[in-house]
């Protein structure tokens, strides 16, 4: 099976994010990583390749030049090929999905397409389902369990309160990973060496049909949220402190 995994390069989870000129972030001193949910997607793609002999995993990434490093990371984890749609344009989720769909559709034998359930920068949480729409294939998101015999995918997704939906869909299909699906592997030294030799195929954005000018969702402004004022520590013996806490929660904060 020709398995695909779409990834995004995002600022590290620990990074503090500052606004620059109202519409973008200050990238100085930002460490870039593969979005954590995409790592679960990569791991599941590699596991599926191991299960279905003769399969191949291709990673696809849309982003500026630095996004190549994210693709190198995924190649080092074990992906066979990588495609970089190089663009620094501010594309909305739909245009992103169009660009990814263009790359995947060019391969008539594409099978399961994995992504993370959201990228932890824009948190838009919709590229996966828009991509499925562009490709005209079924899709499941927030997936915690995945099985596939090559023809049918059977997944479980979390729907809140501990409940799960069991979904069946024919391949090709799109699967968006949640935490808990698997434990992503680390890149081995051999993997890192091997990854260096793989050529990343470049696709110009213009070729994909995606166009910032056609965005359906337009960013107007980025801002930092107001910081909460520092709270109060209630001192005293535990029993007294607890009594005082409950009193304040009722009388001051009015949440009980």
């Amino acid at each position, binding site marked *: 099976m020709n398995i695909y995994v779409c990834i995004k390069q995002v600022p590290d989870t620990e990074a*503090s994010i500052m606004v620059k000129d109202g519409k973008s972030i200050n990238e100085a001193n930002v460490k870039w990583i593969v979005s954590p949910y995409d790592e679960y997607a990569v791991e599941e793609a590699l596991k599926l390749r191991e299960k279905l002999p003769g399969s191949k995993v291709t990673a696809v990434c849309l982003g500026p030049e630095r996004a190549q490093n994210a693709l190198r990371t995924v190649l080092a984890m074990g992906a066979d090929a990588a495609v970089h749609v190089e663009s620094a344009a501010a594309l909305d989720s739909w245009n992103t999905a169009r660009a990814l769909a263009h790359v995947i559709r060019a391969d008539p034998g594409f099978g399961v397409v994995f992504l993370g359930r959201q990228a932890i920068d824009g948190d838009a949480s919709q590229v996966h389902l828009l991509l499925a729409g562009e490709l005209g294939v079924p899709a499941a998101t927030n997936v915690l369990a995945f099985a596939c015999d090559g023809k049918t995918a059977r997944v479980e997704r979390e729907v809140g309160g501990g409940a799960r939906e069991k979904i069946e869909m024919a391949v090709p299909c799109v699967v968006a990973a949640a935490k808990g699906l698997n434990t992503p592997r680390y890149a081995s030294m051999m993997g890192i060496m091997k990854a260096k030799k793989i050529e990343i195929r470049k696709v110009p954005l213009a070729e994909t049909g995606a166009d910032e000018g056609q965005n359906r969702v337009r960013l107007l402004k980025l*801002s930092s949220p107001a910081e909460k004022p520092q709270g109060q520590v209630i001192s005293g013996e535990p029993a007294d402190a607890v009594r005082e*806490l409950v009193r304040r929660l009722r009388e001051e904060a009015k949440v009980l």
Partner: protein
Amino acid sequence: MAKIGIYIELDKGTFKKSNRELLSLARQGGHEVCAVMFCADAAPYLDELKGVRTVIQVSGGDLSYQPDRYARTLAALIAEHRLEVLLGSCSAQGKDLFPRLAAMAGAGLVNDCLAVDPAARKAVKPVYSGKLLAEYQVEGGCALFTVRPNVIPVQPAAGAAPEVRAAAMDSGDTPTRIVEVIQAAAQRIDLTEAEIIVSGGRAMKAKENFAVLEDLAQALGAGVGASRAAVDAGFAASDMQVGQTGKVVNPKLYIACGISGAIQHFVGMKTSKVIVAINKDPEAPIFKKADYGIVGDLFTVVPLLKEEIKKVLG
């Protein structure tokens, strides 16, 4: 004035609080509001829907949630009723349904909104896990927004009774087919919609110790969450994780027990109305972010808190 649709989500027939929030938002500004609900009979809910112009009752056939059928039905209703905006809750179902609808209707969508201006088609949502806020505007077609639960203050339903119109449920193909819904062994409160959450961190030390938090949660009618440290250590299930790679929650009261307060965790619960921290370490960063703190061993403080709450709430 805009023509605004609301997708009303029922939970096994129960009218969810998030619906009241969406209705309160839509009723502001004198818009023409149209509520869409998938149910055999809308009558029991009409008191909640006062002030809404039209209730579209989608019925006939199998009404169980199948994403393809729900999305096609809604896409057809958007076109038929020329809705300019459709609001839904950013619930597990909303997050599944609205992007599918966006794809099908060729519409722009903003998920997880904290504020929506329907007439201007603008919304504010957290980005970078809540480290920043972004304001978006949706171009052309019907603007789709899912709203984070527990953000919009609920106003009592007021106004004239709505007109109920019937619409047919789509019965076409289901390429993405839900074959079964597995309920949790014990009914748990959905953290993303919970009003009170009690959460445990690394200091819980063992899975069994979460019973201490369960007891307090039961006294409060709260959900139980966990930090990434507690999940990664195997003390709690991954669907309990609050934080950057877990759930974003927004309760009125969040009680963090034995949680140090790493940014990873904080971004998942920072919009809680009131944060309480219980931690042995007076230097724990969580105390800088909490509204109220108690420095002490959670295994001493939490049971005392449970007793006090039981006493006070009777």
